[in-house]
């Protein structure tokens, strides 16, 4: 034992001696280096002393914007209620749409072409360019009401994170694309009353150890769509520690469906997206399934330009009819498109009676 302890000691002393011998020659250089280091420290201290004037102001600015958002978030407890009451009255936005001439007399709508049963192209439908689904039916209904022709629509396919820019830039009149009404988004665009209820859910292979939105997500890679509420939720929860720190949420894709591709290729372990869309993904691949229940409650709404009050009121009126219509309304659209993926019982998806709290 002793010998063994001594051995490293002996080695240590040898090394120390070597070092000392080496250092002897480097004394002058060492002194120079120390002097340089000291000079550097002074220089840094001086710069730091100069900096405080600028640095904190940036921090305060951030704090202010943060608190402003927090304030807004606090004020905003139910964003789905922040919409205008229904009305049939025409206003400048509707006039502008109606005044489009000839071939251009169409409603320009941002939709998705990748959400199975919501807005997608059925490659075998025979009409290669035709989009169909729950959202698409709603769009046709709006077009019929405003322009008197259900086919007077120009569809634009828009990636998830381009929905708000497209509305703000006026490239589309509205977005009907499984878009969740959130407090952050009502700062930028105006929403209609909710037309669907859903919530975030986890999707993973049947054989996966993931059991839901819980600690089983530790060490798993999760895929979300860029600019989606799912991604925002994951980021917030990870920061707050509600999600295991080892969960990797860096993978983002333009469209939630691209997550299914990554999942099938084994590049990620799980997908988080709205339950309605997760069910659509599961319907396309029987080896994946929804894990656990919805861990948020969200509402889809039609998004429009912030100042398009007349259009918002009109869409809200159309939605009232849509819900009440028993021959070709909400329930029929649900049965046609979604009962296959979400089940026959539509009560979980039906939005609550709308409230119109927004005054202007």
């Amino acid at each position, binding site marked *: 034992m002793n010998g063994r302890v001594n051995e490293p000691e002996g080695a240590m002393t040898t090394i120390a001696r070597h070092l000392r011998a080496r250092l002897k020659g480097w004394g002058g250089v060492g002194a120079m280096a120390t002097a340089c280091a000291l000079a550097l420290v002074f220089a840094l201290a001086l710069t730091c002393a100069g900096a405080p004037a600028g640095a904190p102001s940036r921090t305060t600015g951030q704090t202010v914007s943060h608190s402003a958002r927090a304030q807004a978030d606090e004020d905003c407890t139910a964003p789905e209620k922040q919409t205008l009451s229904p009305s049939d009255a025409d206003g400048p936005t509707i006039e502008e749409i109606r005044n489009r001439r*000839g*071939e*251009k007399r*169409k409603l*320009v709508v941002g939709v998705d*072409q*990748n*959400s*199975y049963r919501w807005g*997608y*192209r*059925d*490659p*075998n*439908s025979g*009409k*290669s*360019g*035709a989009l169909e689904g729950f959202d698409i039916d709603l769009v046709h209904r709006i077009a019929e009401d405003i322009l008197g022709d259900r086919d*007077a*629509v*120009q*569809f*634009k*396919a*828009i*990636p998830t994170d*381009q929905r708000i820019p497209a509305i703000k*830039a006026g*490239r589309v009149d509205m977005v009907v694309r499984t878009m969740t009404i959130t407090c952050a988004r009502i700062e930028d665009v105006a929403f209609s009353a909710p037309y669907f209820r859903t919530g975030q859910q986890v999707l993973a292979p049947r054989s996966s150890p993931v059991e839901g939105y819980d600690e089983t997500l530790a060490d798993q890679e999760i895929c979300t769509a860029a600019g989606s509420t799912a991604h925002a939720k994951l980021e917030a929860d990870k920061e707050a520690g509600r999600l295991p720190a080892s969960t990797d949420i860096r993978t983002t894709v333009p*469209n939630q*469906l*691209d997550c*299914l*591709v990554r999942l*099938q290729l084994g590049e990620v372990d799980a997908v988080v997206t709205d339950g309605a869309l997760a069910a659509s*993904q599961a319907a*396309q*691949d029987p080896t994946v399934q929804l894990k656990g229940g919805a861990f948020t409650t969200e509402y889809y709404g039609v998004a429009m330009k912030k100042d398009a009050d007349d259009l918002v009121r009109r869409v809200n009126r159309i939605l009232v009819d849509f819900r009440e219509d028993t021959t070709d309304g909400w329930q029929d659209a649900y049965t046609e498109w979604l009962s296959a993926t979400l089940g026959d019982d539509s009560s979980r998806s039906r939005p609550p009676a709308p409230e119109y709290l927004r005054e202007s």
Partner: protein
Amino acid sequence: MTHTPNGTAPPGTATPAPVPTLPAVPPQPVPAAPTGAAPPPRARRTAFAEGVDRLRGAATTEPGRLRAIGAVLAVLVVAFGAVTAWQTTDRAAAADDVLTSSRPLSSDAADIYRSLADANTAAAGNFLAGGQETAASRDRYEDDIRTAAAKLVNAAANSDPGSPSAKTITGLNRLLPEYKGLVERARTYNRQGYPVGGAYLRYANEKMQQEMLPAAEDLYTRENQRLRDDYADATPYPWPALALGVLALAALAWAMRRTYLRTHRVLNHGLVAATAATTVVLLWLTAGHTLARSGLHDSYDHGVRSLDVLHDARIASLKARGNENLTLVARGAETTKVGDETFDAYDHAFGREMGALAEGLARAQRLADDAGGARPVSSASGAMTEWRKRHAAAREQDENGNYQQALDMVIGAKGAAGECFDSVDENLATALEHEEDEFERAAGDGRDALTGLPSGAALLSVLGAAGAVLGIGRRLSEYR
């Protein structure tokens, strides 16, 4: 033999000459004998000085001079032959590389790029067509994949192991089956009516655009550089060989004149033979190289330059077609800003590639030097003009929200923009074939002009040197 021994060496008394060659030996033992530490430097100096002395001694007698002259002449003629053989072998090898290695490889690299881009365009077209992909478009895609795979094998066999090209090829060989797998999945899902098929196609497209095409372009640039290097190795004048040839001829002329002045015999047969051989080699070298050079320059100016321009034009047309398809796949999802105006990103890229195509076709037209080359290019130009017209009409339909009509006008069977693209592509393929022939003919002529030159030069120079030695030997024998 006309010269008779009676003409005893005219100038200088030649009779004692044979003796002095030997006396050089005796002094040597002297420096070797000394004892002590001094000898090394001394011995060295003495040995050198000794050599000089011996030469000087030999140079004072005519046979000694003759021997020296003979040796110099033989060395010059042989050196000329050797340098000629060496330099022309290098150039012939480079010319052969141009024809049989670097040009085919650069053409292979262009084909790899083209077939990959074409396969991707065909796949995007199939997506647009929905589940009902046509047999023609499926065949086109499969053909492209096969071509790319075959050319990659060829390129791999011809690349130096460990070189950047070899790495790029390995990467492409790895990506190709990955890409194909993604497209196959897309097909399967499309047939089942699931939109995830489209997502697979987008992923495959991303892989192609961001990894495979840049790698293929890189390979093309590299192989093109190799071709230019081979040209640069094949065409420069062989100055050292030419200079040595002129020097050898001058030396031979001087030697003959010297012989004439001393013997009054006009011709020394050996020297004449040596001069003739050297002259033949020099003329052959000059003519052969000039021919080879002009052939190679011709193949470059009329072949390679046209081929480059045509390849670029074909790739531009492919990119334009790909963007035209993607405009409809993306449905306005991507926009780009130029100044204050917002354009559809893919349509904007289409316009840019069409501009490149038009420019390429105009340049190809200028470079085309015969009807066979000009005809397909002008046909392609015509098809391109029509393509632009049809594209504008399809865009108008799309802008008006008539997606289905726009789709029919782009990928439909009759009167669609696709027809024009196919026509451009076919015409460019014809033009490429024509220029490829022109290149092969000119470069083949160039290479053939050097055929036999290295071995011929070597043989003739050996003969020439033998002639010079014999000629001098004949003179030398007169002193025995």
